[in-house]
């Protein structure tokens, strides 16, 4: 089959002047919308669909793809500057991006995010181009038992997400998991823990929790420190320039997470959020100085930013080669295809090589545009931090509130946001880490569903969970990732016992 010919056709679409122009429009629109509170790729694509009516399908879809990864790219800005993640895929970016910005290196943090996103985006497009048809089998290879094993692997990482007490991390994770059980249970239709409130039937939105635990809790601390100018960080943006040593730091995470993120993106249901968390955790696990994570580590920022962009390209594998949307975002993207009269599926590559390869080829250009456009803008965007504290606090609060309102349009969710803000503040007062809460909330829901799907299909036979090589190897990795750091920690402990004692309490 003439894959080469098809690729050439795609390149022609992508490099035609319309192709280039609309990729540009797409990524700009995507980045801007992604920076808006609460608006992520889903809204960005849905908003842009009406604009494509009547356009040439291949050009229109090239633009829509640009909107998609542009929005993921733009979403990290508020995470890093304000600790207010606009979309779920960028929560992990705030773990180290925000501390970095706080210490007066906002420019550098945004530059690292932009470069890692670029690398993640570009490497994964190469992978997409080489393996998209072949990987379609991988995309459907995971059934419920394998997903359960994958989520299990993710959950074992919880202990590593906190520097303090492991017990406290596990407690917050359990409560996060409990929060995920609220709403209609999709396997039985039973409503759980809703207290008769229809607003809770579909569960709590991820963004409510993320913005509450992170942004609002942070506001409380900003309020307490509002007169404290001794920090010196206020308004300092720092240089954008990355030193050679910085690049050396980034190289490892960027390479590894480009691949890992891509693979996780290929699996329907996993997506950018899970990729960014797993990217963050895996880098922390293998880092020489895991203690730096969470305090403004370059690796800790580069990893999730690479992974979430790589996963975004990965998500195109099931979408383009099977017509299966692996996430809410790609489902909307599928809608955009349908509006233009294109039905993605196994035959798309043969039927419409211009569309299939055009989208892929255009991603190279799109990623370059994103980098070139964003780097010069960073100093201006980072100026947000120059706003005087009292004003900044009010604006971040409004930002979070609109963010939640724009996805749910209900004041109920806003009250909920406020409650989670209070919870987040109390958790930080008593040194309960928030990250395990979020992670368990995301993974827990999927974990429960895949567990029960497996058991229903196997008529309750629990052995169905460990009956194939993929899940077994995932469990082995989980156990290893749990045991190895323990051993390593013990060794470290012997070396610097005193220091450890005061830190680990």
């Amino acid at each position: 089959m003439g894959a080469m010919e098809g690729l050439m056709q795609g390149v022609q679409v992508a490099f035609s002047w319309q192709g280039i122009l609309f990729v540009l429009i797409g990524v700009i629109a995507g980045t801007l919308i992604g920076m808006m509170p609460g608006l992520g790729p889903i809204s960005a694509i849905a908003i842009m669909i009406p604009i494509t009516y009547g356009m040439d399908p291949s050009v229109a879809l090239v633009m829509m793809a640009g909107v998609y990864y542009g929005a993921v790219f733009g979403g990290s800005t508020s995470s890093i500057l304000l600790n207010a993640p606009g979309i779920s895929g960028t929560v992990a970016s705030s773990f180290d991006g925000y501390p970095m910005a706080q210490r007066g290196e906002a420019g550098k943090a945004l530059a690292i995010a932009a470069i890692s996103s670029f690398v993640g985006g570009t490497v994964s497009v190469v992978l997409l181009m080489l393996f998209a048809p072949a990987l379609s089998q991988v995309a459907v290879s995971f059934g419920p038992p394998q997903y359960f094993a994958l989520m299990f692997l993710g959950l074992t990482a919880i202990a590593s997400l906190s520097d303090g007490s492991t017990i406290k991390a596990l407690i917050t994770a359990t409560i996060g998991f409990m929060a995920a059980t609220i709403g209609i249970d999709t396997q039985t239709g039973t409503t759980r823990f809703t207290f008769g409130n229809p607003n809770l039937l579909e569960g709590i939105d991820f963004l409510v929790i993320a913005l509450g635990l992170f942004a609002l809790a942070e506001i409380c601390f900003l309020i307490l420190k509002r007169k404290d100018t001794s920090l010196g960080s206020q308004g300092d943006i720092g240089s954008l320039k990355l030193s050679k040593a910085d690049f050396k730091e980034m190289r490892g995470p960027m390479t590894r997470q480009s691949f890992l993120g891509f693979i996780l993106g290929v699996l329907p249901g996993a997506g950018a959020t899970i990729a960014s968390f797993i990217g963050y955790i895996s880098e922390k696990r293998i880092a020489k100085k895991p203690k730096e994570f969470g305090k403004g580590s370059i690796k800790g920022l580069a990893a999730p930013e690479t992974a979430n962009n790589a996963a975004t390209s990965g998500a195109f594998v099931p979408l383009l080669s099977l017509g299966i949307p692996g996430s809410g975002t790609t489902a909307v993207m599928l809608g955009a295809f349908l509006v233009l009269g294109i039905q993605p599926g196994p035959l798309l590559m043969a039927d419409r090589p211009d569309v299939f390869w055009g989208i892929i080829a255009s991603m190279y250009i799109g990623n370059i545009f994103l980098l070139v456009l964003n780097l010069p803008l960073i100093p201006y965007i980072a100026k947000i931090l120059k706003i005087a504290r009292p004003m900044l606090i009010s604006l971040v609060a409004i930002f979070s509130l609109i963010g939640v309102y724009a996805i749910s349009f209900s004041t109920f969710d806003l009250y909920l946001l406020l409650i989670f803000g209070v919870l987040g503040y109390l958790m930080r007062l008593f040194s309960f880490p928030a990250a395990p809460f979020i992670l368990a909330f995301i993974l827990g829901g999927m974990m429960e569903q895949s567990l029960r799907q497996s058991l229903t299909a196997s008529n309750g036979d629990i052995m169905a969970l460990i009956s194939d090589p993929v899940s077994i190897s995932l469990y082995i990795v989980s156990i290893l990732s749990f045991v190895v750091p323990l051993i390593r920690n013990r060794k470290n402990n012997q070396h610097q016992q005193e220091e450890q004692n005061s830190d680990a309490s």
Partner: protein
Amino acid sequence: MLKTMNQKISVFLILFAAGYLYLSYNLKKYPYVPVDSDLVPKVLGYLLIVLAIFLFFDKSSETEEEKEKRQVPKKEILVLLAVGGMIFFYIFLLEIIGFVLSSFLFIFGCSWFLGYRKLKTAILVAVLFPLIMYLSFNYLLQIRLPQGLLPF
């Protein structure tokens, strides 16, 4: 008996888990699946109790830094509560007087309260930020924020 902070939190968590378990045991039964919707919540409820018990006997004392974080002066707590109250009031008014007006009140009021004293800038930001947000959401992005009392 409840000497340390951990012990107090632990008791609170156990009560919370008990309430959660109570609700879990009262979930509606669905007869057609081998594992019903109550299994995972029950596991989580007991898990939380076990973890809370561990926390109760957790000997490790808090670092000075951690204790210091809780040393918030009474006055500052009042400030926090006041801002929380303003957010509450904002949410309450949002769908009544509309996004632009309530955001204006909040941004102006909150930043003034926290010590922002440049009157002109405060008013300018409090007018422009909500207005730009509102117009771009409603007209550029077709996402409706509450209109409220304003005619547009």
